[in-house]
């Protein structure tokens, strides 16, 4: 497979509703604000355990999730906090899970963003993240069997793409031409392991050729490019043309989890990617297009802060999970 050009967003934003374009901005800001809040709660020793930041990858989550609709299903991995929010999950539910509250989505039985919420079309991950690939292919299979014109969208990292589930899930989806989209967020590090220790191949999207499915390569820090690339893949899926593997070029800007200072990542690399921060880039483009100015920016940031403050108050006021029904819900 020839090396593709990495896609970037269109120069002309005129074909989009300003509300949609600003919505991408707001949702990336919401994602970052929630990540920051979770980090602050950790530092105040209020979390049950650690936390995983999606800082720097908000464009991947928000852009791709913006391309699916209400009846579609997503399977977010650990760094797709933004996908949960964009799909309509209230912020308090994320915080309740991090705080081990009995009214959270797992009632204290699992932590972080390890949960699903079918009422929002969300299938939850397990720690072995690539298992979401065959599982979400199964959700796509249910759409195909029922004649529903819906798609399943999931994500994986460049590290997680090396387990067998990736291969079996994509191959299966390809054979059955399932309405399925996989976004591979190449964020350069899987815990401490750099890309060159994951594969000898130059790219990850080139694997699609081996499965006979479509592939694309996109700037994951360009939220609109991420949206358009996923939108096209979703259109193919709805049209019966089968799955797509999208490789998103991005960077993990924090450690694997909060305990990890990521000193193994060269400082230069971080500095370089800080200039390509997805929120910074998108804000600049909105300003160039005269869709955003200082006043509006200040207003959005204040609204997001209020939303996160309210959600935090709500989550903190919820009861901590207590023993009582431990055996009651092992089985349905």
């Amino acid at each position, binding site marked *: 497979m020839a090396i593709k050009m990495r896609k970037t967003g269109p120069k002309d934003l005129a074909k989009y509703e300003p509300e949609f374009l600003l919505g991408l901005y707001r949702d990336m800001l919401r994602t970052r604000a929630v990540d920051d809040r979770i980090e602050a709660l950790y530092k105040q020793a209020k979390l049950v355990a650690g936390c995983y930041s999606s800082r720097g990858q908000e464009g991947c989550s928000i852009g791709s999730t913006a391309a699916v609709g209400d009846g579609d299903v997503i399977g977010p991995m650990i760094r797709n906090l933004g996908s949960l929010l964009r799909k309509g999950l209230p912020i308090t539910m994320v915080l309740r899970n991090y705080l081990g509250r009995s009214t959270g989505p797992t009632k204290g039985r699992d932590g972080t963003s390890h949960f699903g919420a079918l009422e929002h079309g969300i299938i939850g991950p397990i720690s072995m993240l690539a298992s979401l690939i065959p599982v979400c292919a199964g959700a796509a299979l249910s759409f195909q*069997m029922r004649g529903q014109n819906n798609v399943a969208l999931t994500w994986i990292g460049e590290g997680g793409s090396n387990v067998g589930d990736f291969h*079996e899930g994509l191959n299966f989806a390809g054979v059955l031409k399932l309405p399925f989209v996989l976004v591979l967020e190449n964020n350069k590090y899987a815990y401490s392991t750099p890309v060159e220790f994951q594969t000898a191949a130059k790219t990850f999207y080139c694997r699609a050729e081996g499965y006979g499915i479509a592939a694309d390569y996109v700037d994951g820090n360009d939220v609109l490019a991420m949206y358009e690339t996923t939108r096209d893949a979703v259109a193919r899926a709805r049209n019966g043309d089968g799955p797509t593997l999208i490789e998103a070029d991005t960077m993990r800007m924090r450690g694997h989890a909060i305990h990890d200072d990521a000193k193994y990542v060269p400082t230069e690399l971080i500095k370089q990617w800080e200039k390509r921060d997805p929120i910074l880039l998108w804000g600049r483009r909105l300003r160039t297009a005269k869709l955003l100015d200082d006043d509006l920016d200040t207003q959005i940031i204040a609204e997001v802060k209020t939303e996160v403050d309210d959600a935090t108050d709500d989550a903190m006021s919820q009861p901590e999970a207590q023993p009582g029904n431990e055996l009651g819900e092992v089985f349905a």
Partner: protein
Amino acid sequence: MTTNYIDAIRLAMRDEMRRDENVYCIGEDIGTYGGAFRATAGFLEEFGRPRILDTPLSEIAILGASVGSAIMGMRPIAEMQFADFIANGFNMLVNFAAKVHYRWGASCPMVVRLPTGGGTRGGPFHATNPEAWFTRIPGLKVVSPATVHDAYGLMRAAIRDDNPVLFLEHKFLYRRLKDVLPEGGIDTPLGVARKAREGSDVTLVTYGSMAYYAVEVADALAAEGVDVEVLDLRSLIPLDEAAILESVKKTNRVVICHEDTVCGGFGGEISARISELAFEHLDAPIRRVGALDTPVPHAPALEDAFMPQPADIREALLTTVHY
């Protein structure tokens, strides 16, 4: 009409597919070929694709797609061509399927069919009894029919259950067992043991292929004045603990027999529960009969020596009765 064990499984699947359009079959060679053991013969003609879904050789995909579609409300019946191959998809069952309801409340109604066991010279990779890999995983149900009626009834119950159910169907019994199924099928609730033979001297707790031998051994011993009660568990998880304890309290002696290897086999769990809950009722040590702790060997004489035989069951029963 007389039906054999594998036909009973096939008929239960067919009847449930006719009743509920969410039920579908997924696996390798199950459509065009009708399944390696012909359990889905004729299904492609009746139900068509994609409800009868031939897949790539890909256990993770079969089980993963089953999990994903089950979460979305389908009721997949996944076939592992041989029970041994489920090892390829272990994570999908023990970490995804088993925990999804406990973790965030989604139901995962799926059946995994496992052609199980030895006696057919299958060797190390085509004759495993994998139940103990799974009986200790909270969130999975494990059943093992030993009669034609239960092959039908447990399959029906497994399909209708809202949880992942591992269905151990014994290859040796496929065409050896024959019986007449009543009109309208049979219900066999999960978690209820079957008293295969009433007796008063000793309880033989068993399941699967060994339940088939157990009654034969018990009947022979009756002629020698030893009255054996045979309890066929049918369902390992959930386990009918009450039925075991009731029988042990009556006979005061117990032998546990399964075709699986002894070390870490499910018999150890049964033994532990009896020790904890009915120790004062025991007049003899609990004995376990199972396969040797080796892989399943291939050559006839080796496999016969490996597997528990009727003579081994008989000897264990006599030792226990005469203790």
